[in-house]
């Protein structure tokens, strides 16, 4: 009798949970993200102590960053100055006090931003052209600053140099690709969360970057929040495989996941979700044709 009660209770719980799950308006996609995130967590945890012990000093990191930044061509446009101004404003709240420097790549096809060790941040003109508010630019720069602030850039640099750049080193590291993928994704999500907090601390609207994500998704003809349902279980398995082999290895996680994470941060940290984004600097925006890309 007791067992029947337990069984009935268990089935009731399962069925109730199924009903709740069935009524969820947004259904998640089928991809290997959770598994790879867990694997990435394991890798990061395993490397936390030895990585911290072997990490180079800030002075050395600044030297490495400066060497890498020498190849960048300096832009002297009003837009470049505007980027520097916003970046400097945001980087004031960073934990590591490095000589942050912000660069604008004039390539209109660069829809991305990159952080270098030692405090150098590069943002592409194509990405800037997608923006409609200064808060979006601040969020992007804050994201890249947090990559530097949390040692992601220098750790990645040190992992690369540890392999020696030799074929043998690359071969030895090849089996760790999946681990590295999960690792990179964790870093991106961490940079999203901390960047949102950093931008909010600088007075920017924390949810403004969501607009930018959605614009980027529209540009690549992808839907940000809706998920395509596979036609059959086999098709779903193939989708997962394709995501593992292709989509997941992009430099950034899917926009939907990043948006969800930012909303979680805003909710957990009780940030002002209703803050209104401030408009872009008019002079700089008109000089760069900002917003036209949308």
């Amino acid at each position, binding site marked *: 009798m007791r067992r029947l009660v337990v069984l009935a209770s268990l089935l009731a719980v399962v069925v109730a949970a199924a009903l709740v799950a069935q009524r969820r308006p947004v259904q998640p996609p089928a991809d290997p993200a959770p*598994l790879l995130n867990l694997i990435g967590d394991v890798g990061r*945890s395993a490397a936390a102590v030895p990585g911290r012990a072997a990490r180079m000093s800030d002075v050395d990191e600044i030297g490495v960053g400066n060497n890498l930044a020498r190849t960048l061509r300096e832009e002297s446009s009003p837009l470049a100055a505007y980027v520097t101004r916003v970046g400097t404003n945001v980087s004031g709240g960073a934990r590591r006090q490095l000589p942050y420097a912000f660069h604008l790549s004039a390539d209109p096809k660069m829809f991305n931003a990159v952080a270098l060790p030692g405090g150098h941040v590069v943002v592409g003109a194509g990405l800037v052209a997608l923006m409609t508010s200064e808060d979006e630019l601040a969020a992007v720069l804050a994201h890249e600053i947090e990559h530097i602030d949390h040692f992601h850039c220098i750790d990645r640099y040190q992992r690369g140099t540890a392999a020696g750049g030799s074929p043998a080193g690359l071969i030895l590291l090849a089996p760790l690709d999946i681990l590295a993928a999960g690792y990179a994704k964790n870093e991106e999500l961490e940079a999203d969360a901390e960047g949102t907090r950093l931008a909010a601390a600088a007075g920017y609207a924390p949810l403004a970057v969501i607009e930018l994500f959605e614009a980027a998704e529209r540009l690549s003809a992808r839907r940000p929040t809706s998920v395509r349902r596979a036609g059959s279980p086999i098709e779903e398995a193939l989708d997962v495989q394709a995501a593992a082999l292709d989509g997941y290895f992009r430099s950034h996680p899917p926009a939907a996941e990043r948006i969800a994470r930012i909303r979680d941060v805003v909710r957990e940290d009780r940030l002002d979700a209703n803050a209104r984004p401030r408009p872009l600097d008019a002079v700089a925006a008109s000089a760069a044709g900002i917003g036209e890309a949308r």
Partner: protein
Amino acid sequence: MLFTFALLLLCGAVALVIFLPFWMVARMQRESWNEQEFVRLNDRIETLAANVHALRRRLDGQDVPVPPPAAAVPDSPLPASVPEPLSAVRRDSPPAVLPATPGEIVPPAATVTNRPGRTDAPPPAAVSTLPQAPAHDAGFPHPGRMAPHAPATAAAPHHSSSELEARLGTNWLNKLGALLLVVGIAFFMTYQLRTLGPLGKDIVGFLAGAALLAGGVVAERRTDYRMFSRGVMAAGWALVFFTTFAMYHVPAARVLDSQAVDLALMLVVAGGMIAHALRYRSESVTGLAFLLAFATVAISHDAAFTLPAAAILAAASAAIAVRMRWFGLEIGAIAATYANHLLWSAQLPASPLGQALPHFDTSLALVLLYWAIFRIAYLVRRNIPPDGERTTSLGAVLNSGAVILVSTRYLANPDLVFTLLVALGVAEAVGAWLVRGRRPAFATLMTMGVVLVAAAFPVRFGPRTVALVWFLEAEALVVIGVRLRDGLFTRLGVSGSALAGVYLYAADVVPLIQTRTGAGPYAADPMVASMLAAAATVYYFNSLRLLRARPEAFPQPFERAVADKLSYGGLLALAGTAWALLPLPWLAPGLMAIGLCLALAARRMLSKDVWVQSQLTAFTGVMLLIAVNFQDAVMVGPLHRRLVVVLLGAAAQHSLYRVSRLDAIEESDGFGALHAWIGSALLAALLWYELEPLAVVLAWSALAVLALEAGVHWNRRDLRLQAFAALAFAFGRVFFVNLNGSGGLLGSAAVSTAPLALVLFYAYERIADRETLRERPWLPEVVAAGGTITLAAMLRVALSPAQVAIGWAALVLLMAAVAARTGRRLFLRQAALGAVAVVVQAVAVNIYEPSYFARWSTGPWFTVVLSALLLLAALPFARRMKLAPDGRRGFAATVALLVSRRPDQALFFAPLLLLVWVSAVYAHGGLVTMAWGAEAVAAFMLALWMRERSFRLGALALLLACVLRITMIDVWRLDQQGRYLAFITLGSALLLVSFLYSKYRGLLEDYL
């Protein structure tokens, strides 16, 4: 006309030249074989007789050497010396008794044992049934003058190529020469004798013919020229016949004005020719005579003369064939009679469709008369040897076939055709019944009767129902065969039903396939379905019912095998019935229902064939279900049609589990389990299609619980394995779908994942103590580990990174509590491993990678200390269940010891390590030493309370570390205030520990 006549003669000659040598060679070979067989049997008879003689002498006390068997003299057809006893025995033997049927064998032993002790017993009956005459026409009477000459070849053991040469030279060359001579003389009369008038030419022709006849008659008296003389006589008669023909038809020789008179004369000549030929009992000469007679009739256009004459010739040839047993002549006569009629009818003017031709009634009556003549001739003959029976049966078939060919050519009335065919069929059947003593004739006529009746049905019935009628006829034959115990009828019935099935497929099923695969609608076709159902009934009834109830109705092994496998035809027809009747979305459950019914039938009848059919049908249904129904999202009321159909399919598969298992079929157990697996897989796939992605895992979990309960209740291993498979898939899916859901403890990820962990733990509990799983002791451990991993992964997604360590520590506490509550050490081991994971997570995230914007509740101090406290809270549960070391040494043994037998070690040192680590990283200056000192004192007090020496040693080691730090670091780096605070704190701690040691010395000594 002359040209026509010459052409006919020439064609006949060419045919003779081409075909008859082959026939001759074949016949000679057969005769040769017969003679060799005769010699062999004769030798055996003599050997047996000698043996009998020797035995008899031995019984009488004499010892006479047994003469060597005749087989020792292979070149001689007869033994060199025939022992007297043999002759005596043969003379005393009863007359030869032919067996009732050709295949019947009278066992020799029976005859011997029926007369025990008889010294004058006749030889075995088998001996007496051997052929007595060695002639090539063995068994034929050879009356008259031909008789002494006929066995000329009997003395020869074999024929050689020289015999063939002799035959060709003396027989066929002479016939061919005679034919060419007649043609030549005919041309000579027509074209060369220009100086003579018609009468002179006719006289010359008659004289030449008479001369040839006279020469032939004279030569025939001498044995050496007998064969030659017949050719000459045939040439003479042919010349006389042609001259008679020329008296009216050849202008150069015309002396008569009336064709009728000329034809009458020709008939007279033909009659005389036939009468004369019969004197010599030569089939070939008589055949030539009849050929000329039929040619006479054929060239006439006068219906009043032609048709009756042909009937007379037919009757005469049939009578002679019966009397003389000239079956080749009979076949020729049949062919000539109907060919003549065909030539006559071809000259008639064509009539519009549906209208009878002129002279229709007369013609039909004559054709039927021909048929009746030859059929009666076929029926009345008796004592026909097997070779002759085959030939005459061929003639019987030719007779009916020719009737159909000639009649249907100008029978435009379908009703009349139907009536004619049915009447002929019935007449053949009646005739067969009349000659049922002659088995070959009975079989031939009955088969033709059946075929004729079957051929009549398409005329009367439409193409969509004729198959049904054929099935009825076939089944009627089968029933008759069973009732009469006659394999012929069952053979005919089975063959007929098979042919009807082929027709049904070609005429009805193929068009329906084309309609459905083309642009046509996919509509049910009840007519085709009903016919297929009838076919299935017939096939299954014959194969399963009749074959089992009346096996004697299928006397031959091959027939039994065919009848046995006929059930597969029934399966095709049955599946076709479902296909024709059901809409495509309902076809799969229909097939599965058929499979279920067949499995029940196989169970009842213990038939492996039916069992195989049930499996084939069921698996076909599954394939169809996968291909068609899973994509079907049409609504039936409030439900998807897919839901209803797949549920039915899954239910059928699960039903097949029990129904498919037969003791008599070894592999049925595996197939039964396979059905259950397929049924569960169908259900799982259906849930995937019907539910949203998040709910699928939960539905699979519920399915697994039900399968597990059923497997435990009914002690079914396959169901239990299905439950574990479902749990494995659900577990895997969590990491690809559900954990992608939203975070938070009430987020979609947590809500849709946590119940799976509960199900896994429930499954563990249900199987943990089952003896049936002892061969897989790892399974419960794996299932429980799956539950714990699911919970840990859920917490990893649901909580923020800073809270994960706390969540996991709480999970460790829960595991330890459950272990203490249930007594299952498994959970304690999981708690120990969980403690290690908490340390790793807390160090990597909370201590080294904290958010720079963290509040106190998410900062490293709060999260790490809280995690440590939760781990420590689990320590009492672990202490309660600790075990003594097992004595093994080594690294692996130590790890196993710590995890399995002493998990309290992990649950003590893990939180201590966390506290020390967070103090080292986040405390400033002398506060590190003070924190470590406080932690050491607390650890020491805890160790005292728990009476655990390793804990005390740990606390002392931490105190020692404090001493080292204060002397190595703090003295040199701290400012004055920090330095004395550190010293004071550490000194106090050391004093306190020392005091405690002193106070509890006795207790400590007890535990050292």
